[in-house]
């Protein structure tokens, strides 16, 4: 069994979804009611790999909504309760999707192992970050040439370079792609210096300095709403990969030659027959999903029951190669530019 822990993109959306599923008591409830709502296992699904193997999985809605980010105790409880439910259901490997993995990491939930009468077993969970990082790198390698960017001559900026996904992307770009230059941007200087030393490459710079030089920009930090960027300063042809959460780059960058790609999204080779991705703003919800979710499925296909992506900066090139090869084998592919609308209508 694989598990996916997710949440709605907004309170309004969550209420509509609850109503569709027949959860009337919370559909009609205000935010306070939602703050007291238990996690719900909303769907079971069977998925068949391109190799013919079948696996079963469950989607658990944590009943977290982004509006709860200002209530830190609530947010923490939502994530831990959903994890407890996944474990109680005997799910072997569960991916934390959307904000849940961000909350887990930023709010240091590792110290909350005991949930009621359940001791959480971390080996049953994965952030899915290894697969997400691999997918973002593939999206970059495949789509840059399509819009006329020669990787050998390209300057790539990674915004959020020292995060779990960001550092893995930098590692891959330096070692596997032969790009001309890597610019690394993050809020804190010290982790950047450590990363630079580890990679023996890359240039530490600021956001404002990086953007005008970059042919490709990989965003793996969610962009503050307040940041204003003058698109006139960008290179004439520019590929932006939006690997952060929530995905909000396309509103910032609208221009003829600015190509914004939703990063870390994969497409399955077949329709899955589930309803849950309808809820996650996917363009083709029967096939598309977050790469982190796909990681749990891949690990289940491979019977690799371990917390494959866990903690910060543990993503090695070998792990990325392993999950990448398994991803392709079972029928996943990274979504590309031609599948993207210029401007998202949501």
């Amino acid at each position, binding site marked *: 069994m694989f598990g996916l822990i997710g949440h709605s*993109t907004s309170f309004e*959306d969550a209420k509509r979804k609850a109503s569709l599923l027949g959860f009337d*008591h919370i559909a009609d409830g205000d935010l*306070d009611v939602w703050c007291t709502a238990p996690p719900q296992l909303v769907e079971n699904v069977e998925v068949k790999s391109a190799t013919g193997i079948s696996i079963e999985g469950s989607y658990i809605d944590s009943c977290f909504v*982004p509006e709860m980010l200002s209530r830190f105790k609530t947010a923490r*409880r939502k994530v831990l309760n959903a994890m407890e439910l996944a474990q109680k259901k005997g799910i072997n490997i569960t991916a934390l999707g959307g904000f849940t993995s961000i909350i887990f990491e930023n709010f240091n939930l590792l*110290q909350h192992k005991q949930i009621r*009468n359940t001791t959480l077993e971390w080996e049953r969970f994965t952030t899915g970050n290894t697969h997400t990082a691999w997918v973002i790198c593939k999206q970059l390698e495949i789509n840059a040439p399509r819009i006329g960017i020669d990787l050998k001559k390209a300057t790539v900026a990674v915004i959020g370079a020292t995060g779990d996904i960001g550092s893995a992307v930098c590692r891959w770009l330096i070692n596997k792609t032969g790009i001309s230059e890597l610019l690394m941007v993050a809020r804190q200087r010290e982790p950047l210096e450590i990363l630079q030393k580890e990679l023996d490459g890359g240039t530490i710079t600021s956001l404002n300095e990086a953007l005008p030089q970059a042919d490709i920009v990989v965003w793996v930090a969610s962009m503050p709403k307040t940041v204003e960027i003058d698109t006139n300063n960008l290179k004439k042809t520019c590929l932006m990969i939006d690997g952060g959460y929530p995905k909000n780059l396309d509103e910032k960058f609208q221009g003829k030659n600015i190509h914004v790609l939703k990063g870390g999204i994969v497409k399955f080779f077949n329709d899955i027959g589930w309803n849950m991705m309808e809820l996650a703003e996917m363009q083709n919800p029967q096939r598309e999903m977050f790469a982190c979710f796909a990681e749990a499925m891949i690990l289940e296909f491979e019977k690799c029951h371990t917390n494959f992506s866990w903690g910060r900066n543990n993503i090695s090139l070998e792990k990325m190669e392993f999950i990448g090869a398994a991803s392709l084998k079972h029928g996943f592919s990274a979504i590309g530019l031609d599948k993207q609308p210029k401007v998202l209508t949501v």
Partner: protein
Amino acid sequence: MHNELKITDMQTLESNKKTTEEFANTNSLKLPDFTTDSYKDAYSRINAIVIEGEQEAHDNYISIATLIPNELEELTKLARMEMKHKKGFTACGRNLGVEADMEFAKKFFSKLHGNFQIALEKGNLTTCLLIQAILIEAFAISAYNVYIRVADPFAKKITEGVVKDEYLHLNYGQEWLKENLSSCKEELMEANKVNLPLIKKMLDEVADDASVLAMDREELMEEFMIAYQDTLLEIGLDNREIARMAMAAIV
């Protein structure tokens, strides 16, 4: 699916920077000062509720045995356990130098107590089990689970022991209702409609005192809903039926 809200309207971690900082500062739970007058005052009522709750549970299990005599032995065992818990919680109050306000507690349980007695007289076993083995037990477990995190060291140890037992009790009612679901579903739904709102009211009534003990109302309610939902799922109700039942808690 098209969202009404634009994705850019979605909250980001960045726009909630204060939360992150707050989190970092308060990640380890701060325990209240157990020696203040305000703590002891609130404790006199909460402690009394717990003691009275265990007494009610004891009496209720003995009463339930009159409806299912062949379960007498098992139910007597459960009842005895509840008395042990009562003693433990009485010791918790004594340890803090607090006298439990039993009069308040009796009044606190009176409505639920009355409903149980009426059901008992009519021989409505399902209603009795719903009140005792589901609602009161889930209420107790949720309160104890929240309390353990903020209790004084003595009470924490006692409460941890109690919680282990309480999961057994929840299980007892669960098993009977599961076996008899087809014949008792209707009564279960009806009894729930009448009694679940009482639990909600009781939670609201103790919210202020509980918050003095650093027990958060929202967390109490959530813990209750988790225990309640788990039991109903175990009994064999589906998500929609549970949703319909839980509805009684918010109207």
